[in-house]
Structure formats: C-alpha cells, structure tokens
C-alpha cells in the first residue's frame, strides 16, 4: 500500500511543474504588452514639436481640445414657495365718528379755556371717560400704536397723575399692582 501511495505522489509532483511551466510565459507576455507603449516608444520629433507648440500657444479655438467641451447643463430654477402671509394691521379709518369726536373735543376745550368747567356735568364726563378708556385699551390690544396724547398737547404731568390716580381708584387698584402687572406682562 505504501509503494502505491508513493508512486501516486511522485506522479502528481511530476505533473505539477509541467502546468506551471506552461502558465508562467503567458503571464509575462501579457505584462510586457501592457507596459510596452509607456516605456518602449518615445514620441517622434514632430509630435514633440506639436506638443511644445500647443503648450506655448494654448488651446486654439478650433482645436480638438477646444471643440470637445461639453455643454454644462443649465442650473435648475430655484423653487419658490410662499411660507407665510402676514396681513397689514387694521388702521383706523377716517369716519364721521372721528370728525364728531374732534368737534366735541374742541367744544370741551373751548369751555375749559373760558373757565366754564361746570358746563360739563359729571355723568357726561363719566360716559366720555368710560368710552375713551374702553376704546383706547381695545386699540392697544389691536396693536394700533399711537400716542395717547399728541406731543404738542397742553396736558400737564399733574393732569395725568390726577386722572391716572382717579382711574386706578375707580377700579380699586394700587400703584403697586399696576407696576406688577406691567412687569409681568412686559408692557
């Protein structure tokens, strides 16, 4: 049994180098074919001269290198999208009510200048003050920014303090509470 095994082994060993001997020359030939143009051949003098000319003059407009330029695709139009629409705030319109209010203010002012403050009865003044307070507060809430009195008004600081104090007292509020509310609400 051992003799047979050794014979088989020897035949395998003998056959193996034959296959290897056949394969190796093929690989070398392929390698030499691929490497040949890079190392073996040198450009002809005319090719060298053409290369130097091309480098010196740059790419000419009608040259092959110039003609091969591919057109760059046009940039796509940017997408337009409306994110938010913010409408204008409501502005007070010029109505007959405004004109009547202006006329009434002129009449009251005229009476005040003429020292006829008793011409306006307390309940009439109350009605006016209530309507003005409610309307002014509603306009502030509606984000209509106008000064409560004009910059060239004749209203004095004392007048303001008297009116503010009376208004706070009328609704049972302390100055401290006013200050706290203004701080908390950021007004």
């Amino acid at each position, binding site marked *: 049994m051992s003799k047979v095994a050794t014979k088989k082994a020897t035949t395998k060993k003998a056959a193996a180098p034959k296959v290897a001997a056949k394969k190796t020359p093929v690989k070398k030939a392929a390698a030499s074919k691929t490497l040949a143009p890079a190392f073996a051949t040198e450009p002809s003098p005319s090719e060298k001269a053409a290369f130097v000319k091309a480098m010196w003059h740059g790419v000419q407009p009608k040259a092959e290198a110039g003609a091969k330029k591919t057109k760059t695709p046009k940039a796509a*139009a*940017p*997408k*337009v*999208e*409306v*994110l*938010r*629409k*913010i*409408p*204008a*705030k409501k*502005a007070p319109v010029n109505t007959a009510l405004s004109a009547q209010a202006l006329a009434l203010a002129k009449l009251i002012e005229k009476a005040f200048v003429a020292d006829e403050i008793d011409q306006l009865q307390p309940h009439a003044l109350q009605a006016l003050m209530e309507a003005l307070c409610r309307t002014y507060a509603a306009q502030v809430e509606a984000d209509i*920014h*106008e*000064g409560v009195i*004009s*910059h*060239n008004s004749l209203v004095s600081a004392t007048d303001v303090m008297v009116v503010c104090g009376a208004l706070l007292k009328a609704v049972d509020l302390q100055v401290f509470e006013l200050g706290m509310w203004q701080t908390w609400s950021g007004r």
Partner: protein
Amino acid sequence: MTEQFIGKLSEFKDGDRQIIRIGDDEVGVFRHGGEFYAYSNFCLHAGGPACEGLMIARVEEHLRPDKTSMGLSFSPTDMNFVCPWHGYEYDMKTGACVADKRLKLRRYDVKCKGDEVYVVV
C-alpha cells in the same frame, strides 16, 4: 439673475408682507406706501426672522431751538421693522440697521409686470 414670480399684485395690499422661500434663501417681501421692498429674512445679529417682526414707524425726537427735547413721536413717513428675536431694527426703505447704518440686510429687487410681482434673485 433670474426673475421669480411670487404672486399677483392684487394679493399684496398696502402694509402686507409675505415670507417666501426661493431656493435656499428666505425673503421677506413688503408692500409699503405703494412700493415693494424685499430683504433677506435672516437677521444680521443672530439669524432671526428679521422680516417677521413688528412694523413700527421710526421714532423721532423733536427739539426746541435751544436743543431741549419736546418729546418723542412716530414719523409719519418712515417705517421700520424689528427682528422678533433680539429687537434689531431695520429701515424699510434701505434695509439698514437703525443702530448701525453699516449693517444692511441683503436687498432683492422687486419688479411689477402688469398684475404680476417678481423678485430678482
């Protein structure tokens, strides 16, 4: 420079504004006093939505001849808008920051063709 259609003229009433995304940019388009203004919606301070804040008239101080103050009042003509994040205020007509005129929001041209409004990007 391309003109991007953003809407019909009838959609913009005086005082209206629209925030529009054009590609990667956000643009605030204002209509004020019959004129259109468009600015980048990114505040120069911290990138807040500058064009979405309060629109408020410019505050002016009137002086007497001896330079003492008569008080503050709102301008009847000039309008500003305020970034809602930190209160940077910008001029509606120029896009310049009120506190520092060197800072300006990126401005976009707005064109009206018939009833159509375009922003030039």
